[in-house]
């Protein structure tokens, strides 16, 4: 019994904020032993929260099994269960939280609720080795520039309406493009954009530290429907305009905070053109640039497991009665005692 207790230094993390259901396992030293991701891909249209949640419930137990097998540890070796408590889609979050509560009570270990956005930053820091970056987090659901200041991560710029990945996805669907596993809409647009030559003028909307993408999307779709422009040129122009907007707010945060590291993460981080833009900005400000590898940049359980380790080892636990999901939980609301 004693030996087993001494070996309890693993955290299992559950991620289910949107279309991915994922379980990761991390040691207390930040070694990622497993990171199993099962994505829900609708045949048509966007993510239907209830459908996605149903997918999560269906694949839940097999993802858990795979993660445990991959990690080579036994469930009773787990010291703590972490889960994405928000922000995200209600039904999806609730499914993950239910699995987390069940596991924690079955294994009789503490539960810790993790902020999804902070988890993205923390895993990015772990895998790239940066310490105190300005982070540009761009995905289907989020578009924000965050950096640490006075005890918390603070938002130094964000979208006022839709997320960058959402903007690209909706445009792709309007253009009747198709995605498949390993080739999401963003990658399809990126590929088409490489063949684009002519810049079509689209609205560029930066409002101080924030940006707005909905006008850009509407304009791009309107031009698309007129059918007078080449799709390649339109993809090219959409990327150039949207990426220049996020690049500007990133540079602004970098100039404002004076930090010396820039981290790019989220699903859209895989885009090479975006990477080159953010890299150029980092160079301009003599900062180090790092992009998080895709496995850890998209929604994943490993990031929740690792952030769970950080939170738990700094005395944070979430009692079951306070483990309700928080759909609109901003990262500024969370204390991060592990950062100095």
């Amino acid at each position, binding site marked *: 019994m004693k030996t087993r207790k001494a070996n309890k230094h693993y955290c299992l993390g559950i991620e289910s904020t949107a279309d991915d259901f994922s379980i990761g396992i991390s040691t207390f030293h930040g070694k990622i032993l497993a990171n199993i991701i099962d994505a829900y891909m609708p045949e048509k249209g966007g993510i239907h929260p209830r459908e996605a949640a149903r997918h999560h419930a269906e694949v839940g137990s097999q993802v858990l099994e795979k993660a445990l097998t991959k990690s080579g540890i036994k469930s009773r070796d787990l010291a703590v269960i972490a889960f994405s408590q928000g922000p995200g889609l209600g039904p999806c979050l609730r499914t993950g939280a239910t699995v987390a509560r069940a596991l924690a009570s079955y294994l009789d270990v503490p539960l810790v609720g993790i902020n999804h956005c902070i988890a993205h930053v923390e895993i990015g820091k772990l895998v790239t080795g940066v310490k105190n970056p300005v982070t540009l987090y761009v995905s289907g659901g989020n578009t924000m520039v965050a950096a640490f200041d006075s005890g918390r991560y603070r938002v130094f710029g964000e*979208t006022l309406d839709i997320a960058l990945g959402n903007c690209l996805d909706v445009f792709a669907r309007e253009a009747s493009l198709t995605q498949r596993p390993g080739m999401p809409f963003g990658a399809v647009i990126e590929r088409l954009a490489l063949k684009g030559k002519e*810049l079509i003028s689209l609205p560029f909307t930066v409002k101080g530290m924030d940006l707005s993408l909905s006008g850009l999307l509407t304009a791009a779709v309107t031009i698309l429907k007129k059918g007078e422009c080449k799709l390649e040129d339109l993809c090219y122009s959409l990327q150039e305009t949207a990426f220049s907007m996020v690049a500007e707010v990133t*540079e*602004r945060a970098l100039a404002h905070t004076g930090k010396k590291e820039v981290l790019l993460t989220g699903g859209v981080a895989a885009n090479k053109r975006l990477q*080159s833009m953010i890299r150029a900005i980092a160079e301009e400000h003599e900062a180090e640039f790092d992009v998080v590898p895709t496995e850890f940049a998209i929604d994943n359980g490993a990031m929740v497991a690792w952030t769970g380790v950080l939170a738990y080892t700094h005395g944070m636990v979430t009692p079951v009665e306070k483990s309700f999901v928080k759909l609109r939980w*901003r990262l500024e609301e969370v204390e991060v005692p592990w950062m100095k």
Partner: protein
Amino acid sequence: MSSPVLIKKGAEANLYLADWHGRKVVLKKRLPKKYRQSTLDRQIRTYRTIHEPQLMHEAKKAGVPTPIIFLIDRKNATIIMEYIEGKQIKQLLSEVPEKERQQLCFRIGKLVGKLHRFGVIHGDLTTSNMILSPDGKIFLVDFGLGDKTEELEARGVDLHLMKRALQSTHFRFATECFNSVTNGYAEVLGAETSKSVLDKIKEIEKRGRYVAERKEKE
């Protein structure tokens, strides 16, 4: 011209201090951004270089102190303007006692009110874009992201940005400061208009991502 000294390297432009015909001036240069596609880069830089002085001029008409423009060099995307001596409000807010802080914020609110009443949107109302001159005037600078409109939405976004800037830079007394700002704003625009702008801000916040209040009210 003596060789300009870089005083601020911003995301959108670089500022240089220089001597120009015996005057102390600021050169605002919008340098090409390597990361930007060249056509888009030129469009953005030219537009902002022409647009900014126009808005500064409008602001003066509205009764809001802004630096004097001496020259607009469209080709090089450079503006030469008066150098304002004084201290940034950003710095002052964390130095002065509470009463003075509230007074400053109240005066800022009045200035923003004057701008909005005249149809000018600043577009970047952060405390680093406000300077208190030695003769006690508050100057507003950096109109590069501004606009000329009387739309409620634009006014709301403008003031919402001010609120967010206070929260990220002066989080210890952000609420108190913003209250003083809105009081000053209301004094110029009247209680009714001011309320509709504040309601707009609430709406914008709820539109915003992951705002707890939105869920509670649904």
